């Protein structure tokens, strides 16, 4: 049953029935939809109705992955512009770039790769958010930025931005360890998990209390503390190296030994997962990096020495449902990426259609086709002499940042 017909019986937009028009709209990017509000009164009413309708927004999101015409994968990155920034530690986080690569379902054209790079300036929120120091996380087109006790959600594709209610764990002297944003499909709700430690100074020494965790739910628009952190985590691996897969966050942790720390959004449970049983893991000089492969947790594993040509092992977590208290999950050595011609590149993330995004030593992005083993240099990113400091697969969605009943008007 078409959504609009239920709400506005009997109205027609042009020659096409609303249900067909609704189907067409579900394939359009947000900016086209917003522009087409100007076509006529009935298009205006239909589009306004649809972009506020959860069922339509979810269908629009699913269609992004299903597209066969102008099928794309986008990477959203935050760049360090070296020309404007002498001190590399000062990052220009208000300068975002989305890189969209067009994928052709055409074997003859597989050598041809089109891509466009677009700039995104984040809509400036009313509050004081130090973008330079903000933690960021992305899911379904929404970016979550967090600095101290200030959290902001924004959807660059619809220009929506919202400052969130103050977290319940907001003390004066606070170290925010992690802020992550994800979608709980079972509860049909977007959630944020925040890990913090309180800092205090005694006898000129700095101390930290135990980590505490809290969760924000967009559905009810409020925070609450969650208990049950199974282990004290002094330091996570690099910020922004977590992955989100099927309602679970995974963080790489390098303490006395290396493991993966996870949180399930639905069960609200923390867990510890051990790495694959592999000789490389027991060696000291190796690199591990988390990724998502075909909706499963994956792990890149390669030796750390920079000089030698090296291959990258890709491990995929098979089943973690029946893991015991020691957190033994079964890992499968899925495949090995042989040393690339032209030097080593760091694996970043898997994209759809067997593509792997990598970063060359000069900072440029490389797209590697796992099946044809072809390399494509994405020169446009290099051209601005910038280094992406965080990157993720990005989609232009209609998902609203408004919480609660979501009745607040869109795009004010």
């Amino acid at each position, binding site marked *: 049953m078409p959504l609009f017909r239920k709400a506005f019986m009997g109205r027609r937009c042009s020659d096409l029935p609303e249900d*067909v028009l609704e189907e067409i709209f579900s*394939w359009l990017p947000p900016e086209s939809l917003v522009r087409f*509000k100007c076509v*006529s009164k009935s298009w205006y009413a239909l589009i306004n109705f649809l972009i506020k309708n959860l069922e339509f927004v979810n269908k629009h999101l699913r269609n992004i992955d299903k597209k*066969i*015409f102008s099928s794309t994968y986008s990477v959203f990155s935050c760049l360090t512009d070296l020309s404007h920034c002498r001190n590399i530690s000062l990052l220009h986080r208000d300068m975002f770039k989305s890189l969209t690569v067009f994928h052709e379902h055409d074997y003859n054209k597989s050598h041809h790769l089109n891509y466009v790079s677009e700039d995104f300036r984040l809509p400036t929120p009313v509050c004081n958010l130090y973008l330079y120091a903000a933690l960021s996380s992305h899911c379904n087109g929404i970016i979550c930025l967090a600095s101290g006790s200030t959290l902001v959600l924004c959807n660059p594709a619809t220009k929506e931005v919202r400052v969130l209610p103050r977290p319940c764990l907001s003390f004066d002297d606070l170290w925010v360890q992690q802020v992550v944003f994800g979608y709980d499909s079972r509860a049909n709700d977007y959630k944020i998990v925040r890990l913090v430690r309180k800092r205090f100074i005694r006898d000129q020494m700095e101390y930290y209390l135990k980590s505490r965790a809290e969760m924000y739910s967009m559905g009810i628009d409020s925070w609450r503390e969650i208990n049950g952190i199974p282990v004290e985590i002094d330091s996570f691996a690099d910020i922004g190296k977590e992955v989100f897969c099927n309602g679970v966050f995974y963080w790489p942790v390098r303490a006395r030994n290396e493991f993966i720390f996870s949180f399930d959004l639905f069960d609200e449970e923390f867990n510890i997962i051990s790495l694959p049983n592999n000789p490389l893991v027991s060696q000291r000089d190796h690199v591990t990096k988390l990724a998502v492969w075909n909706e499963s947790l994956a792990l890149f594993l390669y030796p750390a020495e920079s000089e030698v040509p090296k291959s990258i092992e890709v491990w995929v977590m098979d089943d973690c449902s029946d893991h015991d208290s020691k957190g033994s999950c079964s890992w499968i050595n899925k495949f090995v990426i042989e040393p690339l011609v032209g030097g080593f590149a760091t694996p970043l993330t898997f994209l759809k259609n067997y593509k792997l995004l990598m970063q060359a030593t000069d900072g440029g992005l490389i797209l590697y086709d796992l099946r044809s083993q072809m390399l494509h240099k994405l020169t446009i990113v290099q051209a601005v002499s910038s280094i992406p400091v965080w990157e993720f697969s990005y989609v232009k969605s209609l998902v609203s940042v408004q919480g609660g009943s979501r009745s607040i008007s869109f*795009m004010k």
Partner: protein
Amino acid sequence: MSSSSTTTTTTRLLMLKASDGVTFEVEEAVATKLGAINNMVEEEGSEDLICLPNVNGKFLGMVLEWCKKHANNNTNSDKGNDEVNKWWDKEFVMDLDQNTLYHLLMAADYLSGTELVDLLTEKVASMIRGKKVEEIRETFKIKSDFLPGQEEEIRKKNSWAFE
């Protein structure tokens, strides 16, 4: 679906009659890719002749060509085949003119060929996504019915989408 199941069950043939009297003889497995036909077959059971007064023979033929391809391809579905299907789909709608696309879409919608509607609406969307408002009005034969000033107000509010 395995190949053994198609050999054990006798292939039933259906007659589909278009608005202009053109008839098509198709296997049941092909025709039931269309939700509307599937419902008729399930409800009426024995009837072998189905009249479709809202679809012209030319477009019914095209819809059935799509169904045939997808009914065959579903028998050995794997990842690689999915890619082939997508490639075939793309070719299928590649050079359709606006008029054919419109009638084919109306036929697919009427016959509840959900996957085909998906394909055709995505094709339409890919054709119009970058267009200006005036071009959309021309394509869809729509006259602006906004009061003076209303359209400008919407444009002003969403100026970023018009850049």
